[in-house]
């Protein structure tokens, strides 16, 4: 296993290097398959690691080299392979491979074909480094690498101003999180003097439980997690990230990036167990974000934006789960979510292509005839995310809601919020489905929509299979060595809560069916009746506008002030003033340089007499007192 783990990293690295250095010379076919194949190879290697773990191999913490050492600060390059990171790399490479393969078709016509695959491989590489790293420093390197490659990919179509702006926004938001991460690492090192996980986990109990230090560390880590996972209040970059190509959205939302925050909290669960306040904060952030994003999702009309808000909402579920200590449930939901969200995005990509890059769901409709595979797979994804019984999303979401509802105190109310969110999820997903895929145009369809080629439909079908069966994987048992054995809930409790969540989901579905399929005029009536509330939700609670007023504009104003006033009148004035002063003085002193030896001698003599006088005065030989 100690050779397999670095190979998992080297495969995408090789793909990245080949495509980045020689991509322009290579034929397109080779570029695409190098890009996808390197990730596929990573998946096979990850499967080998999984098999070794299942057949009883011990988790690995192997140091390959010491990166640098200074005093008692030493940073090894060590990889940490346990069930948690194995689950992560399996999803990253598995779903990542399908997305790469899909991209071969989707990006087929694009100018920057090799650039695209180079960036994608870099993205996967950074994410794998993030999850496999065995110490905080390399985690942060991977963390920053994910931020960088997401910036590159969101701004992939850099000739569009909106893409550049969105990329910059994502980068700035992520950097806020990076700063939090780095400060957390500083604090950890100051208090524990170590950087690698094994040592951190064994020494964390030296800190006072729930004390200032551990709480501060966990909250700073949370800042990083919130920024990367697009939770409140650093979420605004995620919907804008839709400016990137659709496979990028799928990669960011499903397999990588946004789940990094969940992974971080789960990986650091010993720290969060030691800081209950911070853990409760994680839960509140997650629960509120889940609800908040779901409400926004109900009023959007851009297919990718709806999916983006649904991602925020689902990641909120995962945060809620890891915040209340149900780590295995959170990671379980991460895995099922990877399947159905990648499926939804890739299927949406097929739809967008069919409509020539129009993303407004109101312009779509009746896709069953034209795009049968996409239609049925999207339906499976929608059912899965809505928690339709026996599909993947049903199991994982139910576990989170059950864990939250069975907790005491305020966490119970977060569970109720999560339950309401489940209903909202069913509503907005079926609203999307009915409007975009509905069949009311069936009789007069002359649009000649075409289904995507097999390279784009096969990955979607595979993901759809995953979205159905992923719920049966015994993830909680697999992760038991890390998080402890799952709490066995009574059969009646499980059944009762399942029934409850199904009822809620059915209510959401019923609402969507009534308003957007059965009687659309009712939806219009409701919209006017809700009035300002609807406008508020449609404009995403005006958070972007708020940040614009509070941070961006004052920032610009300050920059303008510094540029126009401080720069010219203070800094330049000081620099030029010093220069002018010496120029003027130099002109005056120049006069004493006559070139005449005798005048110099006179000056010298005068100086000497002056020195003698001063010394004499100090020694008290003169009737003057100095000093």
């Amino acid at each position, binding site marked *: 296993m100690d050779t397999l783990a670095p190979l998992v990293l080297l495969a995408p690295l090789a793909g990245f290097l080949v495509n980045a250095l020689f991509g322009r010379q290579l034929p397109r076919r080779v570029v695409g398959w190098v890009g996808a194949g390197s990730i596929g190879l990573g998946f096979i290697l990850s499967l080998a690691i999984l098999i070794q773990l299942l057949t009883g191999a011990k988790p690995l913490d192997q140091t390959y080299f010491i990166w640098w050492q200074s005093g008692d600060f030493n940073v090894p390059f060590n990889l940490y392979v346990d069930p948690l990171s194995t689950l992560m790399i399996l999803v990253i490479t598995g779903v990542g491979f399908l997305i790469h393969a899909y991209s071969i078709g989707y990006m087929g016509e694009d100018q920057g074909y090799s650039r695209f695959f180079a960036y994608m491989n870099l993205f996967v590489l950074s994410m794998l480094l993030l999850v496999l790293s065995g110490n905080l420093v390399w985690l942060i390197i991977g963390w920053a690498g994910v931020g960088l490659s997401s910036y590159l990919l969101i701004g992939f179509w850099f000739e569009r101003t909106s893409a550049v702006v969105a990329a910059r926004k994502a980068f700035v938001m992520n950097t806020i999180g990076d700063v939090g991460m780095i400060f957390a690492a500083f604090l950890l090192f100051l208090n524990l003097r170590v950087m690698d996980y094994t040592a951190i986990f064994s020494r964390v109990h030296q800190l006072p439980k729930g004390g200032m230090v551990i709480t501060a560390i966990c909250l700073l880590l949370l800042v990083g997690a919130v920024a990367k996972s697009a939770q409140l209040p650093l979420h605004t970059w995620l919907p804008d990230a839709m400016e990137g190509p659709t496979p990028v959205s799928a990669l960011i939302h499903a397999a990588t990036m946004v789940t990094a925050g969940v992974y971080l909290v789960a990986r650091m669960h010993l720290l969060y167990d030691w800081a209950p306040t911070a853990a409760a904060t994680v839960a509140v952030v997650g629960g509120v974000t889940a609800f908040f994003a779901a409400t926004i999702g109900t009023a959007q009309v851009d297919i990718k934006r709806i999916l983006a808000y649904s991602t925020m909402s689902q990641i909120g579920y995962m945060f809620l789960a890891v915040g209340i200590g149900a780590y295995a449930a959170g990671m379980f939901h991460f895995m099922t979510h990877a399947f159905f969200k990648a499926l939804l995005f890739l299927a949406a990509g097929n739809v967008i292509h069919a409509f020539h890059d129009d993303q407004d769901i109101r312009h779509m409709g009746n896709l069953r005839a034209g795009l049968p595979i996409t239609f049925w797979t999207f339906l499976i994804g929608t059912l899965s995310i809505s928690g339709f019984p026996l599909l993947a999303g049903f199991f994982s979401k139910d576990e989170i809601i059950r864990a939250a509802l069975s907790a005491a105190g305020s966490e119970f109310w977060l569970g109720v919020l999560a339950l309401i969110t489940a209903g909202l999820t069913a509503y907005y997903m079926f609203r999307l489905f009915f409007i975009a895929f509905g069949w009311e145009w069936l009789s007069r369809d002359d649009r000649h929509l075409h289904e995507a080629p097999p390279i784009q439909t096969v990955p979607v079908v595979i993901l759809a299979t995953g979205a159905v069966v992923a719920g049966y994987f015994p993830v909680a048992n697999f992760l038991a060595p890390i998080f402890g054995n799952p709490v066995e809930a009574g059969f009646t409790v499980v059944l009762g809560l399942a029934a409850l969540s199904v009822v809620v989901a059915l209510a959401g579905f019923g609402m969507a069916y009534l308003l957007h399929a059965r009687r659309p005029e009712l939806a219009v009536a409701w919209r006017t009746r809700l009035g300002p509330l609807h406008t508020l939700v449609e404009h995403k609670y005006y958070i972007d506008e708020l940040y614009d007023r509070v941070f961006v504009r004052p920032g610009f104003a300050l920059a303008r002030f510094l540029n126009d006033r401080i720069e010219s009148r203070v800094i330049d004035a000081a620099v030029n003033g010093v220069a002018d002063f010496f120029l003027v003085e130099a002109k005056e002193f120049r006069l004493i340089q*006559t*070139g005449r*030896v*005798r005048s110099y*001698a*006179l000056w010298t*003599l005068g100086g000497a007499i002056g020195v003698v006088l001063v010394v004499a005065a100090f020694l008290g030989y003169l009737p003057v007192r100095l000093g």
Partner: protein
Amino acid sequence: MPVPAYTFLLLSGALFTMGAIGFLVRRNPLVVFMCIELMLNAVNLAFAAISRYLNSLDGVVFAFLVITVAAAEVVVGIAIIVQVYRAGRQMDVDGLDLMKE
């Protein structure tokens, strides 16, 4: 009867003052040089006198050092003066202000 040390210092001061004034008022480079020698030797005299007064050889050592430096300086100085004379310049230190620029 030993001569008191201050008489030597007075003589040294008088010689130095003469040298300094001569340096400032005369324009002939050779005379200027002689004035410099006068000042150096005034200092030497003071060194030697105080050395004797303090019963220490330090001052004498310095005097020898000054004599050596003075000899070297004269060699260089006279060489420069000869070169200036050969170049057809006037023998007036006030006219030699090439170092101004």
